[in-house]
């Protein structure tokens, strides 16, 4: 069965591209959210297998959202993404409970599969 995915990003253009790319790679996109609070609510309601989570959001940052998603029952696997490099965030990525980080420029079904299987 296809893995269910929640896309969290405040740019609708990116969400649309990501949805198309993920669906083309065999994921089932079950929802989208534009900020951190909406992401936590949607994750609670939809119970996705995977959350593709942008680091820079208008309210909470992606690391805070990842930490809170970790507390949910049947916590989803979180993959952080950003238009910046992993190095721009120091060791925040390593410290976070997320499975990993993929720069938006390198985002593909294969890169995702390597992180979450």
């Amino acid at each position, binding site marked *: 069965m296809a893995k269910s995915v929640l896309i969290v990003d405040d*740019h609708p*253009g*990116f969400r*649309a*591209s*990501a949805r*198309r*790319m993920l669906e*083309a790679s065999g994921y089932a996109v079950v929802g989208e959210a534009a900020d951190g609070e909406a992401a936590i609510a949607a994750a609670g309601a939809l119970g996705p297998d995977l959350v593709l989570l942008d680091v*820079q959001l208008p309210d909470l940052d992606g690391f805070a959202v990842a930490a809170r998603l970790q507390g949910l029952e049947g916590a989803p696997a979180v993959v952080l993404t950003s*238009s*910046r490099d992993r190095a721009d965030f120091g060791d925040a990525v390593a410290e976070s409970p997320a499975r990993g980080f993929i720069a*938006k*420029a390198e*985002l*593909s079904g294969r890169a995702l599969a390597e992180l979450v299987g």
Partner: protein
Amino acid sequence: MSGLRRALVALGVLAFLLGILSAALVMTSDHASPRGLLLALVLAAGWSFAFTGLYAWDRRPGNSIGPLMTAAGFTWFFQALTASNNAWVFAIGILGQTLPFAILVHLLVSFPSGRLRTRLQIVAVSLAYLATGPLQLVWALFTDPTAQADCDGCPENPVLIGGAEGVAEAVSAVQVLGGCASIAIAIWILYRNWRRSSATERRVLTPVLATGGTAFTILLMQLIVGELGASEAFKQVTFIASVAIFACLPFAFLLGLLRSRIGRADEETSALSAENQQLTAELEAKVAELRASRHRIVEAGYAERRRVERDLHDGAQQRLMALTMTLRLARERLDADPAAAAELLDEAMEELGAATAELREFARGIHPVVLSDRGLAAALGGLAERSPVPVEIAAAPDERLPTPVESAAYFVVAESLTNVARYAGAELATVRVERRDGTLEVEVSDNGAGGADPDAGTGLRGLADRVAALDGSLSVRSEAGKGTTVEALIPCG
């Protein structure tokens, strides 16, 4: 010769003439006794007070000690009028003869500044004037000089209110009490001033206080003993002593006043220090404003860099990310579904076009290339073209100006036109940029709603700092219903 000095010389001449007149009155008097001593007192005290007073007045025009001494001198001549055989002149003399003592109290307690500052000083001086002014008048109305023991041959009192001898005695007693109280307070004030003063101040105070204190003591003795009834010999001695001391007193005042730096320095220093304080305050305000504006310029620099980063991140970069994903998808589809891949490529090209346009707009926001290439007039034309509200360029300089001036003028117009489009609801904006007398005048006005708050929003504030950094100024006039006018004046050499 100044107007003041002319007046002072005239007063000096008058004092001299009054002295001569006094001598004539005393020497021809039927009743004055002893004539020689009376004349000595009048001339010594009257002339010395008047002349030293006028001199002090001339040297320290801002200090009232000089005028007070002069007044004391002139009032001494009332004594001479009491020698007159004419009843009316005699009455006037009686009326005024005690005034110099009140002025003396005034002089001593206000020395050396000439000002009455404390309540106690005012009480002492008020009591003195009350006893010698109004009360002396009442006393004079009820006193019959012909009935007095020491006034043989005195003229009759032309204004006598008869049949009430007790009144004069009662008033006289009140006068003596008031006078004694006034002198006692004055002595206390003098003592206190002296005790509180520094060594330098004592150099000024000592001659006055020593002479004044002695004069007061003699006066007090005369008052008290006179009331109790004294021997002729005692009266003679105290009289001679008072002549001597009153003649010395004005020189003591003059010496003290001229030694005093307070008399002159007081006013000059206080004016100087007030001016100094004001200048310091202005300077501090300027420095604070400069510091604040420098802080804002640095802050604006950081804010600008953050804005550039955010604009790039949210705009072009996001478009390029999406473009990358679209291209990658197209590449993956190319073999299996060429038609879908072609559609994705079309989409990618559209996205690329949008990203390019956005970058171009963005670069112009950082620095408009037309401004550096072709100057202010061309750049303003470009702004007018892109403005959603119609813009009329009423004037724009053809010549090239220093780069910072052109740049500041350009951004003042750009920001103002942005505000017109956003807030004013105007139908027309007018831009006028003219070089006049070494200043570039930049004016953007609209026919919109007006009522804009010039302090609201950081855009204009940042521009005001930018203009101020070039020693210019920016002002906003925005009355409700009358449109908004932004005016910048930028020195351009």
